[in-house]
């Protein structure tokens, strides 16, 4: 009796050990991907961190960060970056929320069709879309031509190479990132809640604001966050549509390296940008599941 007991425990231990080894072997399958992220991303970014604390004389110093605080041009760049990101996020909410709501009210088949129109821009190249806006909005562009021909305004208005153009282009590119999570959240809202609200005498408006809207906020929050964080580090669209008049942090990083070969200044800007991004994502991760933010649920 005692001997069989011993055997079972030994067996159980052995099995547990085997299982652990098996799990580690399985886990090891992720090593090529992890290694790549480590070599091409983690180590170089760690090096940027280090470089940002090296002064012009090659010793440890905070001069790169001091310059950022002292120089007006740098604080202006940060203000512009936040301005553009906030405005883009706000506009995306104002435009995307009603559209997502509209889609969530349609039968699935029609909603899927609308979803294609939202996703279509996703499949077209970022550069192509930016180029398209440049063409449409320029002085002799379609928008000005048509508006003048129907008498909306007399002189061609300036839409590109300024803030307006940048915002138009960015909202167009960011909109799907907002709509998808919002739409997902809205689809999962149980219609019975709304029926109950209206049976109890709530007006449609009241039912919407007290029942539907609060239930959709996790999706709205996730989408807005995604848009905001993506905007902070955006480069292509503001560089082309801003025409050098809207300077964001990422553009300053590039010009610091391409024009001035100043790695210290570029790295310090990069570190601040990264810290801001991580901080925002960290705050958000306390309220949201990671999978929600990455859209993994859909």
């Amino acid at each position: 009796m005692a001997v069989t007991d011993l055997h079972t425990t030994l067996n159980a231990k052995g099995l547990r050990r085997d299982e652990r080894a098996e799990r580690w072997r399985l886990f090891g399958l992720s090593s090529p991907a992890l290694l790549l992220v480590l070599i091409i991303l983690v180590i170089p970014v760690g090096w940027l961190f280090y470089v940002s604390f090296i002064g012009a004389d090659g010793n440890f110093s905070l001069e790169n960060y001091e310059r950022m605080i002292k120089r007006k041009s740098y604080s202006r760049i940060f203000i512009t970056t936040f301005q553009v990101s906030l405005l883009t996020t706000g506009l995306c909410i104002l435009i995307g929320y009603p559209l997502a709501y509209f889609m969530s009210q349609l039968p699935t088949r029609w909603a899927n069709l609308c979803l294609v129109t939202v996703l279509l821009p996703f499949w077209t190249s970022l550069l192509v879309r930016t180029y398209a806006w440049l063409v449409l909005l320029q002085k002799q562009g379609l928008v000005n031509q048509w508006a003048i021909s129907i008498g909306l305004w007399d002189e061609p208005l300036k839409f590109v190479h300024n803030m307006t153009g940048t915002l138009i282009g960015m909202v167009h590119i960011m909109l799907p990132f907002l709509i998808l999570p919002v739409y997902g959240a809205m689809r999962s809202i149980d219609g019975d809640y709304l029926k109950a609200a209206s049976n109890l005498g709530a007006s449609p408006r009241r039912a919407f604001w007290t029942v539907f809207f609060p239930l959709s906020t996790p999706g709205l929050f996730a989408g807005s966050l995604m848009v905001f964080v993506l905007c902070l580090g955006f480069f292509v669209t503001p560089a082309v549509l801003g025409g050098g008049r809207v300077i964001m942090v990422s553009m300053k990083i590039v010009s610091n390296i391409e024009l001035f070969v100043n790695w210290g200044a570029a790295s310090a800007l990069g570190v601040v940008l990264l810290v801001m991004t991580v901080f925002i994502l960290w705050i958000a991760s306390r309220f949201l599941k990671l999978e929600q933010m990455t859209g993994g649920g859909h």
Partner: protein
Amino acid sequence: MLNWLKSPASETQVTHGQRLWLYAFSGIIMVLLVLPTLVVIPMSFSDSQYLEFPPETWSLRWYRHYFGSDEWMLATLTSVKTAVLTMLVATPIGVLAAYALHASKLPYVRAAFVLLITPMMVPVVLIAIGAFYAYVKLQILYTITGLVLAHTLLAIPLVVIVTGSALKGYDMNQENAARSLGAPRWKAFVTITLPQIRFAVVTSMVLSFLASFDEVVIAMFISGGDNPTLTRNMFNALRDQIDPTIAAISTIMILVTTLMMILASLFGRGKS
């Protein structure tokens, strides 16, 4: 029509009439989402130096210019090579990682997942200058190898997320059944699991291809010399002037990506 306007549109008895503004608004926005990119297509067939819509005289002038230019052809070749290789590298690595995270129930899985999706969270400019630095050390600056590695980095989060969510909806007991009948683990995966998550795998491939083909900022730093990418050249051309050649290239790109999406969705159909 009047009846329809007065009929209830939702559980809260709001009528279609009261919602007309929403329908109009949504319609306009959807048109604005799609139309701007499509306008480029007719413009690319113009004979003029300037972009016109609609073109006064039609011609293939800008297409001839694109296909006749060694510079553009070289860049296109680099981009296509890089994108195909990225797809071939990122998909297996990413699927393997997603499977590893799903099947091994170790406590480190969450940390590994976070690490694998960081390329999505880190501003792309930082990845670009980081890769530039790493490539100078590794001596692979301006090579296709370097481009493929960096683009694979960008594609991995997409593959891991898409394949990972497909695995979540898949019943691993099927694989266990195959294994209890004597199939080795890899065989069980290849013959039982893989066919069932194939739509996710195909989607991952398409996404990896597009992520690479479309990438601008990293390519600005680490492509050049004999291997500039198409997007790098396009971006440089865009900064200087509005060249109708880009309308022609854009049209071809729209065509190629649309074709890929259609092929992917055809392939993914069938059982699922």
